[in-house]
């Protein structure tokens, strides 16, 4: 650490920041409930203030992290020495996820102000979900991760059911049953790891697991359960069935938030377990197990794309595309060489931004024009040029068209796969890109070159042609534009970001 950054680190203790980022949204979530007692609808204002402060804290944490030489901040909660207490850890991997969570949470909140669902309890749950996601991203303890995973789950299930439809409630219940089984499988994995080592801290487990020996059946079983549990949470094929129903029947704001972040953070946790707890040494020791995870993920890549092609409902199409994308990301982390891991990380962030915004876009078009199916999108670009342009850019980010972040992510993963000899994975990425291109082009083609005759809301006049349709407020346009710009610009800046997280990548791989 150079003297300059040491001075800064003493003025603002970055460790406190890691804790405050997690705790602040959670503590503030009580305020909307107290406000309901007085019949004040303070929910949105409170949540907006808390998330704005949180975003600022996150940026401060990121700044102080990037000033440290080894890109690592560890904070022992309660001053209890690790591994006996719980610690929070921020490194190059987690900080990008934390930034994503804070940014998306704040941005989607802007959308919910006009589009709802409203209600103080809703905003309490929204803050709790944010706190849970941040906790999962920052914790350095295997069991603490489970607790935050369940906070995330509880809030997400409730939010999916926060709309007015019975379908949403049923989808939430199915989501909950599957999600809880996933979390319990993860907990069983924690149990096996604990039985083998007697410890729960991730950094300590890394050493103790290798001391016990990677050939130990308990160590291997723990790995299998941890990965399976988190794969269920991430909705990989074939345990993805809860996900399209949950995303398509949730209110738009919730669908955007949940699709952008909840599975993303589960995959991040998977990366933590594979790379930080089990390490590349374990994967090298068990080449067959590594290949199994990679091919399992590869099946997800193809199956998700194929299923997405067959959807006529736009939200379901977007949901199935996530199955494919998360397959790609999990494969990247399991390949575990520097290029693949960095590609996976880029893809994780890029997908979160793009998918959340695409759900916002789909929600806007559904509200403004009643457009839910692919054929309803005919000619939308003529009625809502700005929203449609952002939507199209984001959709091409999903495909991986250059120079978007999607392209850079896939590029790094592909290079990494070839480096490690997984040529089949590179082929699968190429094939699924073609499939993604197929359904995205089908949609964008209709938006720009279709005739708005089928949809009466688009066909007859009302509202000036230069502006956007009713329901597409400026706030929503800002959300979409920010996401499109981020998705677009992260691509060209990929190598700059790589330089920032390089020390972490080296430590992990």
């Amino acid at each position, binding site marked *: 650490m150079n003297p300059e950054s040491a001075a800064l680190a003493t003025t603002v203790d970055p*460790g*406190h920041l890691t*804790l405050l980022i997690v*705790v602040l949204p959670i*503590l503030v979530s*009580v305020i909307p*409930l*107290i406000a309901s*007692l007085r019949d004040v609808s303070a929910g949105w204002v409170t949540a907006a203030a808390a998330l704005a402060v949180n975003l600022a804290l996150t940026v401060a944490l990121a700044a102080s992290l990037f000033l440290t030489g080894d890109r690592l901040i560890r*904070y*022992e*909660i*309660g*001053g209890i020495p690790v591994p006996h207490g719980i610690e929070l850890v921020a490194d190059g991997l987690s900080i990008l996820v934390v930034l994503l969570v804070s940014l998306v949470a704040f941005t989607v909140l802007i959308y919910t102000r006009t589009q709802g669902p409203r209600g103080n309890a809703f905003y309490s749950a929204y803050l709790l979900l944010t706190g849970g996601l941040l906790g999962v991203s920052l914790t350095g303890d295997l069991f603490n991760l489970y607790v935050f995973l369940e906070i995330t789950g509880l809030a997400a299930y409730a939010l999916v059911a926060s709309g007015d439809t019975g379908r949403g409630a049923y989808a939430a219940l199915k989501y909950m049953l599957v999600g809880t089984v996933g979390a319990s499988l993860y907990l069983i994995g924690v149990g096996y790891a604990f039985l083998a080592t007697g410890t729960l801290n991730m950094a300590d487990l890394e050493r103790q697991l290798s001391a016990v020996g990677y050939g130990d059946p308990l160590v291997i079983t723990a790995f299998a359960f941890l990965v399976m549990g988190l794969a269920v949470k991430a909705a990989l094929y074939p345990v993805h069935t809860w996900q399209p129903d949950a995303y398509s029947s949730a209110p738009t704001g919730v669908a955007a938030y949940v699709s952008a972040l909840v599975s993303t953070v589960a995959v991040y946790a998977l990366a933590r377990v594979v790379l930080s707890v089990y390490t590349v040494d374990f994967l090298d020791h068990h080449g067959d197990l590594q290949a199994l995870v990679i091919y399992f993920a590869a099946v997800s890549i193809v199956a998700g794309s194929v299923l997405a092609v067959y959807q006529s409902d736009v939200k379901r199409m977007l949901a199935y595309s996530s199955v494919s994308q998360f397959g790609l990301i999990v494969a990247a982390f399991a390949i575990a060489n520097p290029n693949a891991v960095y590609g996976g990380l880029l893809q994780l962030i890029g997908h979160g931004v793009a998918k959340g915004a695409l759900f916002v876009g789909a929600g806007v078009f559904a509200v403004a024009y009643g457009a839910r199916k692919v054929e309803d999108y005919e000619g939308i670009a003529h009625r809502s040029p700005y929203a449609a342009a952002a939507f199209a850019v984001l959709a091409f980010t999903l495909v991986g068209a250059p120079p978007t972040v999607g392209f850079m992510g896939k590029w790094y993963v592909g290079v990494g796969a070839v480096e490690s000899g997984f040529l089949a994975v590179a082929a699968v990425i190429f094939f699924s890109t073609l499939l993604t291109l197929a359904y995205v082009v089908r949609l964008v083609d209709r938006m720009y070159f279709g005739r708005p005759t089928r949809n009466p809301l688009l066909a007859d006049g009302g509202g000036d042609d230069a502006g956007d349709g009713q329901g597409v407020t400026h706030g929503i346009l800002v959300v979409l534009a920010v996401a499109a710009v981020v998705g677009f610009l992260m691509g060209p800046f990929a190598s700059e970001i790589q330089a920032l997280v390089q020390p972490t990548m080296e430590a992990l791989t």
Partner: protein
Amino acid sequence: MTDSSGFDDRSENDSSTHRGQLEADGGEAGAPIDTEEARRRPYVESQVVMATVRLISPFVLTYGVFVTLHGADSPGGGFQGGVIMAATVVMLAFSFGIQPTREWVDDSALLGLVAGGVALFAVAILTPMAFDGAALELVVLESTTTVAVKWWVEMVEVAIGMMVAGVVVGLFFVISSGVFGTDEADREGDR
């Protein structure tokens, strides 16, 4: 078993009171329990149960407080104590009817318990940070306030107890009154 006229008019208006009478309603196989027949059925109370509950609930409540406060030295703690305290209210609800108990329990009291619990927990987390310690570092609190760690642990246990008691009672009332809108409409329809 006698009919108590005291609650009759209330229960006439409130279908959820009948739903609280679980065993009595078990008969309608395959049908929703809140059928017309069940709705008209008079509210049944047992003087014996009511007297017993009235007698033992102070003791149960005290035991809950004891379990909460004694967690540091013997098995038990905030969570178990909170559940036991909540059980007192639930017992009252099952013997005196859910609706009268709902009216008796103040909503701001429930929320106050939950918010107070959160506030106490926040104190334990945040104050050590103000005194150059880590979050939740109770030893720092001991050295600045000369109050032993043990008592700070008790404070956290009390915080948990308050939250749990408030939430469990709240859950009981919320679930027993069902979905807002549809069930409210039921009630209006009964009037």
